[in-house]
């Protein structure tokens, strides 16, 4: 029998005709689960779910501009919610802007995934199996739930990718002038495209894990050096920066083949750094994206390899000034450089080392692997270790720079953090004491805006860095290498305690580093939860900052807390795209613990998560568009997100009004009634200003309607304790979370019952120490909440 195979065929006698056979449906598709209602959803399929969320968690807008400039009928003054020439009002225009931001974020991860998958299929073939280790059977929870597929090979990932690409284009279309009229519908689109973002991330990370053999859900991955002071100055240093490791990875292979891996330092900035360490634990992490100018200006790099996303747009300029050759690799950021893909390696090396070219565009990973070490070695030979770790030649030079300052304060008004550079300068001028300048380093994101504002052209960044040099150098520790997914076995163990509430919550600290406070604040916030045995998950730049801050004994959180997804564990999943394993873990709880089917069953799963899984996202310093889509994707899945104050610049939040009693209800599948519930969680996206506020908000947003009494008691105990510790009193809203006396913290039970009686008019039976009347609803062990009519119908049938 003639058997069809994949590939191109030339048909005899028909010379000019060839037939290309793509994916062949060889067998009936495996019936791994009954198909749910929304596989491969379009814009409309989950709109009803979105509206449920949006009615409760009302969109909040904080415009940055009063005007809209998007088309040539404008500019239009939309202030006070006026309409523009096209008819759009301010709220809808802002919702459109958020949708655009989420489209950018989703495209970044999805294009990254596309780059990777196409490249990896070429290198490893489309049949490379998706094997994430023995303890991971639910390999792609997001793809299963959203797209409705169960990918088995690298090639299968293309189906999910094509779906995500299609949806991103459709949502992008909707932001064209003259489309939506309702801000609710733009929000629904922002939620939709952000859900696609999580698919894009999952594809990207699964592809690189299986192809590059990254750690596969192992809790005890190695610890790698992290921080500014990690470089051995006697070795040439190759610096990688960005998010797509596929270009820089062959550097490790090349050096390994040559037996020279130990002769070089390979260290990275941002997510490429994470992924380099996932490939080889010999790689190191300099730090988050705002360490770029710290590293480059301190002469640490002998060559820089850039790829894509979040990299400085003046990287070439910064490298040129520091005399460091740049290799740009991704077509997303060609940087005006000549494409040297076709050049022989020697010619590229010569052009870069001689300075004939300050940088090149080289999108060929294998060549990058050879070129970078050769360039680094030659440049290192020129300068030696001499130039490393220097912001100024000597102290005189530093003071000369400081003495130029006239305290005009232009820098203060330009600085995103309004840092008082002027005060630091004048203090140093008068006393020679650099401590006030040094303090600024702890918050300075080295953005360079102050330098452009300074009429005296002072190298303000160098001054600040030099002033805090010792601390900066010593902010060096260990990061636990990103582990990728959470094991099914781990979920099996913690699923019930999370859903019942005995594990008080999962805090997922992810995203960028535009913190409102010193770097150590992220550690202070998270340790509060680790000590209280919450599960803390992290990724991206947050995960590497944690690796830089040490306690008095010189230990980072990674050395103090285990890498298990369990109470008191600190789990680094990896880079930005690894965030899909966090959304994936919440989905797996619904599936593995509660046996809810995933396949194309998004609304039911998100509804499950919202009502039962006490997970909260936390981004202390979000700035990228990707952070916007990651957070919005979590929101659609029913996971609230707390952001630092810069997060308000995304211009939109989802904030419920707990005092509006009619907004807080569910259908109870057990009693077959619609019932009023406590407002938990009461926000889906909310900003905080201080670390104290972050801690308290995170604790309160872990409360879920489905908590058992034991669970609620634990959650409420932490919330009340933290509120008293940081806010000096009981929370304003604690009574709304009380369904029966069993929900109350044991130690304070009597005191709280008295307050309920005296201040809130509740009826208490003091003999039995029981609440007789008062709560929004009584506790019912069989309570089975849902917001989705179809889910209600499905489980009340028969």
């Amino acid at each position: 029998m003639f058997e069809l195979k994949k590939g191109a065929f030339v048909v005899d006698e028909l010379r000019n005709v060839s037939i290309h056979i793509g994916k062949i449906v060889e067998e009936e598709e495996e019936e791994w689960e009954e198909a749910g209602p929304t596989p491969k959803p379009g814009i409309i399929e989950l709109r009803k779910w979105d509206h449920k969320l949006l009615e409760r968690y009302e969109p909040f807008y904080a415009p940055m501009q009063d005007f809209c400039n998007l088309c040539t009928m404008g500019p239009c003054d939309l202030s006070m919610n006026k309409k523009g020439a096209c008819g759009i009002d301010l709220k809808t225009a802002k919702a459109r802007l958020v949708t655009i931001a989420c489209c950018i974020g989703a495209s970044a991860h999805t294009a990254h995934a596309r780059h990777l998958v196409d490249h990896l299929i070429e290198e490893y073939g489309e049949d490379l199996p998706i094997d994430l280790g023995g303890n991971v059977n639910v390999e792609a929870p997001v793809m299963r739930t959203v797209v409705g597929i169960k990918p088995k090979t690298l090639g299968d990932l293309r189906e999910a990718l094509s779906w995500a690409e299609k949806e991103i284009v459709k949502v992008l279309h909707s932001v064209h002038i003259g489309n939506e009229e309702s801000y609710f519908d733009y929000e629904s689109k922002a939620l939709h495209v952000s859900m696609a973002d999580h698919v894009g991330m999952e594809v990207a990370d699964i592809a690189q894990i299986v192809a590059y053999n990254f750690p596969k859900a192992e809790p005890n991955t190695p610890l790698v050096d992290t921080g500014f002071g990690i470089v051995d100055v006697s070795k040439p240093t190759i610096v990688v920066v960005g998010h797509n490791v596929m270009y820089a990875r062959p550097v490790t292979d090349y050096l390994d083949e040559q037996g020279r891996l130990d002769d070089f330092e390979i260290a990275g900035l941002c997510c490429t750094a994470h992924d380099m360490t996932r490939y080889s634990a010999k790689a190191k992490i300099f730090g988050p994206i705002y360490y770029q100018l710290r590293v480059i200006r301190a002469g640490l790099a002998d060559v820089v390899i850039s790829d894509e996303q979040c990299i400085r747009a003046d990287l070439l300029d910064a490298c040129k000034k520091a005399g460091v050759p740049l290799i740009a690799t991704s077509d997303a950021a060609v940087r005006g450089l000549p494409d040297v893909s076709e050049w022989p390696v020697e010619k590229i090396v010569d052009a870069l080392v001689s300075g004939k070219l300050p940088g090149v565009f080289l999108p060929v990973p294998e060549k990058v692997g050879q070129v970078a070490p050769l360039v680094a070695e030659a440049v290192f030979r020129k300068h030696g270790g001499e130039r490393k770790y220097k912001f100024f030649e000597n102290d005189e030079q530093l003071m000369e720079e400081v003495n130029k300052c006239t305290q005009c304060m232009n820098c203060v008004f330009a600085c995103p953090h309004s840092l008082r550079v002027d005060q630091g300068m004048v203090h140093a001028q008068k006393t020679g004491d650099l401590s006030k300048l040094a303090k600024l380093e702890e918050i300075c994101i080295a953005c360079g805006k102050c330098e452009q504002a300074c009429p005296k052209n002072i190298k303000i960044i160098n001054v600040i860095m030099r002033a805090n040099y010792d601390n900066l150098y010593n902010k060096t520790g260990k990061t636990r290498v990103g582990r990728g997914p959470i094991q099914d076995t781990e979920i099996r163990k913690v699923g019930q305690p999370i859903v019942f509430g005995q594990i008080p919550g999962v805090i997922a600290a992810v995203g960028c580093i535009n913190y409102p406070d010193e770097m150590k604040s992220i550690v202070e916030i998270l340790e509060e939860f680790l000590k209280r045995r919450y599960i803390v998950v992290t990724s991206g730049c947050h995960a590497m900052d944690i690796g830089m801050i040490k306690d008095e004994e010189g230990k980072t959180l990674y050395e103090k807390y285990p890498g298990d997804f369990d109470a008191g564990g600190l789990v680094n999943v990896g880079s930005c795209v690894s965030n899909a394993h966090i959304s994936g873990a919440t989905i797996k709880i619904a599936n593995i613990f509660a046996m809810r089917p995933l396949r194309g069953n998004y609304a039911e799963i998100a509804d499950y998560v919202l009502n039962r899984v006490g997970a909260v996202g936390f981004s202390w310093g979000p700035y990228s568009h990707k952070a916007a889509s990651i957070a919005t994707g979590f929101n659609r899945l029913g996971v609230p997100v707390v952001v630092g104050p810069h997060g308000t610049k995304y211009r939109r939040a989802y904030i419920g009004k707990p005092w509006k009693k009619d907004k807080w209800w569910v259908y109870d599948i057990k009693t077959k009634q619609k019932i009023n519930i406590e407002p938990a969680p009461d926000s889906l996206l909310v900003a905080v200003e201080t670390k104290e506020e972050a801690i308290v908000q995170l604790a309160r947003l872990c409360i879920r309607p489905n908590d058992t009494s034991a669970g609620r008691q634990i959650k409420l105990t932490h919330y009340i304790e933290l509120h008293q510790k940081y806010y000096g009193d009981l929370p304003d809203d604690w009574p709304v979370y009380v369904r029966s006396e069993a929900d109350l913290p044991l130690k304070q039970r009597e005191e709280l019952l008295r307050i309920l009686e005296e201040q809130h008019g509740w009826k208490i039976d003091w003999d039995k120490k029981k609440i007789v009347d008062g709560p929004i609803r009584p506790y019912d062990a069989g309570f089975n909440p849902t917001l989705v009519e179809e889910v209600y119908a499905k489980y009340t049938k028969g």
Partner: protein
Amino acid sequence: MAVTKEEKFPVAKRFDIADVQVSRDATAVKPKIVANVIKKAKRPLLITGGQLLKDEKLVEFAVKFAEKGIPIAATAGSSKPLIEKGVKPVSKTYTLHQITQFLQDEEFKGFDGSGNYDTVVFLGFLPYYLSRMLSSLKHFSKITTIAIDEFYQPHAKFSFTNLTKDRELYYSMLQEVLDNL
């Protein structure tokens, strides 16, 4: 020489399609005016922010506002030093972000249930964060907003002028508001 109002030439007026784009920016006011606006308010509210945790002086000023009978909604943990000094904030738990959302709702009855606030004063916030919240209130509410932080806040209805090298001057401005209440 610039054209002045008194001259025969027309004055320069901003217009939408060729302009630096600000629709309404705050009236920069002296402390006395701030006091007058607060005095005229039927339902004033002072919201305090996280910077109270970094600047003891701001706590002292907030206490004085409370002593003048102005209710305080403390955010970001600023309730702690206030409570320690005997103040009872009307709100401690909610963030400025949440309160700004509540204020925009016509059904919001205030933290004491007696009605929404008509004049809200802001003290002790990170400038970029406060700016966003003031923008939201400017566009989507009728509340009179007054920023008395160190930075001029264009999105407020009334704002102090900008910070200077001299922080004492700023403190004296706050004191002057209180003296005139």
